């Protein structure tokens, strides 16, 4: 069943927006360069923009159908929208902001308390919007949207205004919120890395043209990400696992991969963050993975996994190689390295990466 079915054409001055898509995954990331039409898509979903023609169905509710002249206005769609700049009402306290939609919809005190505690907003309830930091603003905006009994949550560039440490905390918190919620969530970002920390299902938009959403790995296999972005740095491996062991004296935490439990990553220890059993997401850049034909002894690299080349293709002046080690590891290497290893699909190869190359998120 599709959460969202959208088929639309829209014209805004010189900008055309169009495409067909069916969103079947609960959490979808919308990725594209600035000005591609990401926010336009969210506006269409929320009813803030009227399409010239098309059809939109959210959770079986037809929101617009230009053929039968149906257009459900924004306030009747139950679509929560967390705007890039938060848009906290400046004349209302944080508590009144949070209760703004709640009063007219759910009006359930227990739910209010749950959301307030989940988003750590209790201490801010009596504050004025002007007193909040960027991260707090964002949390209030998310809380306010969730209070209004929504059937779809839209997040527009939720991490843009946050500094790196706060961003990391915000990503962890948002991951938690998304997993507790039982509604479809769409997150827009121009930062692929942020998006991948929240979901692997991506909907690509370029020059106002939407594509059918697919998994990140599949998009790379179809050469969509490199073609799409043109930036060589954008290959990320995101894996989920749980903390198996923390070896404080060695400065290492062992993380067991969800997809293949026999695979244990060594990551840098963080005594404040990880305890055995904790779920963890790890991020590894494709360019931080070295390939070797043999296991390498007497080397500082703690992570070495054997696998087979699954896909390899050239993009601009580098190679993209996906190695199947039980989990698919995306690597990026120079043409020279690739040629010297004579890489081709099916070839056995070792993937090497340092513990310090891994970023871990709770």
């Amino acid at each position, binding site marked *: 069943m599709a959460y969202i079915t959208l088929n639309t054409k829209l014209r805004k001055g010189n900008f055309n927006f169009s495409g067909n898509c069916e969103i079947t995954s609960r959490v979808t990331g919308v990725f594209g360069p600035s000005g591609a039409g990401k926010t336009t898509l969210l506006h269409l979903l929320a009813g803030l923009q009227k399409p010239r023609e098309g059809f939109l169905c959210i959770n079986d509710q037809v929101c617009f159908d230009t053929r039968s002249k149906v257009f459900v206005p924004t306030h009747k769609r139950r679509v929560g929208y967390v705007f890039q700049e938060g848009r906290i*009402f400046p004349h209302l306290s944080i508590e009144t902001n949070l209760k703004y939609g709640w009063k007219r919809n759910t009006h359930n005190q227990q739910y209010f308390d749950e959301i307030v505690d989940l988003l750590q907003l209790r201490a801010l309830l009596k504050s004025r919007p002007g007193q909040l930091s960027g991260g707090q603003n964002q949390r209030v905006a998310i809380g306010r949207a969730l*209070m209004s009994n929504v059937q779809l949550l839209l997040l527009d560039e939720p991490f843009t205004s946050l500094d790196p440490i706060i961003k990391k905390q915000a990503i962890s918190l948002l991951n938690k919120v998304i997993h507790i919620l039982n509604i479809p969530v769409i997150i827009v970002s121009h930062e692929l890395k942020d998006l991948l920390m929240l979901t692997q299902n991506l909907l690509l938009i370029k020059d106002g043209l939407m594509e059918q959403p697919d998994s990140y790995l599949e998009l790379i296999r179809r050469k969509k990400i490199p073609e799409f972005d043109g930036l060589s740095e954008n290959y990320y491996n995101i894996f989920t696992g749980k903390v198996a062991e923390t070896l404080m004296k060695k400065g290492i935490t062992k993380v067991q991969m969800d997809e293949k439990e026999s695979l244990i990553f060594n990551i840098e220890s963080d005594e404040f963050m990880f305890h055995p059993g904790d779920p963890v997401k790890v991020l590894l850049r494709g360019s931080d993975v070295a390939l070797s034909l043999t296991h390498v002894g007497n080397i500082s690299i703690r992570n070495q996994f054997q696998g087979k080349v699954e896909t390899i293709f050239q993009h601009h002046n580098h190679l993209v190689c996906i190695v199947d080690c039980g989990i698919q590891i995306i690597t990026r290497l120079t043409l020279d390295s690739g040629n010297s290893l004579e890489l081709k699909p099916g070839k056995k190869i070792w993937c090497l990466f340092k513990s310090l190359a891994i970023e871990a998120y709770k």
Partner: protein
Amino acid sequence: MSFLCFISFISITPAEISAVLLSLKVAVISSVISFPFALFIGRGMARSNFRGKSLIEGIIHLPLVMPPVTTGYLLLIILGTQGFIGSWLYRTFGIRLAFNQTSAIIASIIVSFPLVTRSIRTAIEMVDRRMEDASRTLGVSPFLTFFSITFPLALPGIISGLVLGFARCLGEFGATITFAGNIEGETQTIALAVYSLMQVPGKEGATLRLVIFSAIISLIAMVLAEYLNKKVKGKH
């Protein structure tokens, strides 16, 4: 100035008290009546686009650019007992709209309305539309969004508009004298009383008294508006 002179200066005649009270009455009633309409039209002008918007805008603003005496004359030929609407009202319901207090109020409403509407419109235009969008995504209808988001955020500008309108009503002269006349105790507001007193030699003291009253009332209105403005802005 001797003590007696001072006493005579502050001894107010019933006619003067009546002019001051009438001015206040006309200004307050006109402001109260015009406010909901000005709010409705100001919102429409700020937020809606429709055919003929410029024409309606022009008609509303006409009394602002026309000499008030001509506005009064137009009112007289429309609403006066000989006028095409006024004569019908008089014949059918016995309602007389010219040369009484009602006509003074009508004249004040007509001349102050463009000022109030314009201020309200500008105040609403200054409110970030994106806040209204945010409200609608939270399940709140456009009507309630206006009263819970737009109105409170535009309130400082709306208050300024009301004070401006109130002051315009207090100072109204041309349209009132033409349409409502200068009848003591009935339509003679401060402005008209000052004009009448100026025609009579030896009434300089009385004239000055009314001018001072007029200044005090205007000052109180402005101070009150400033106080309310600060209170509202402090909340934001």
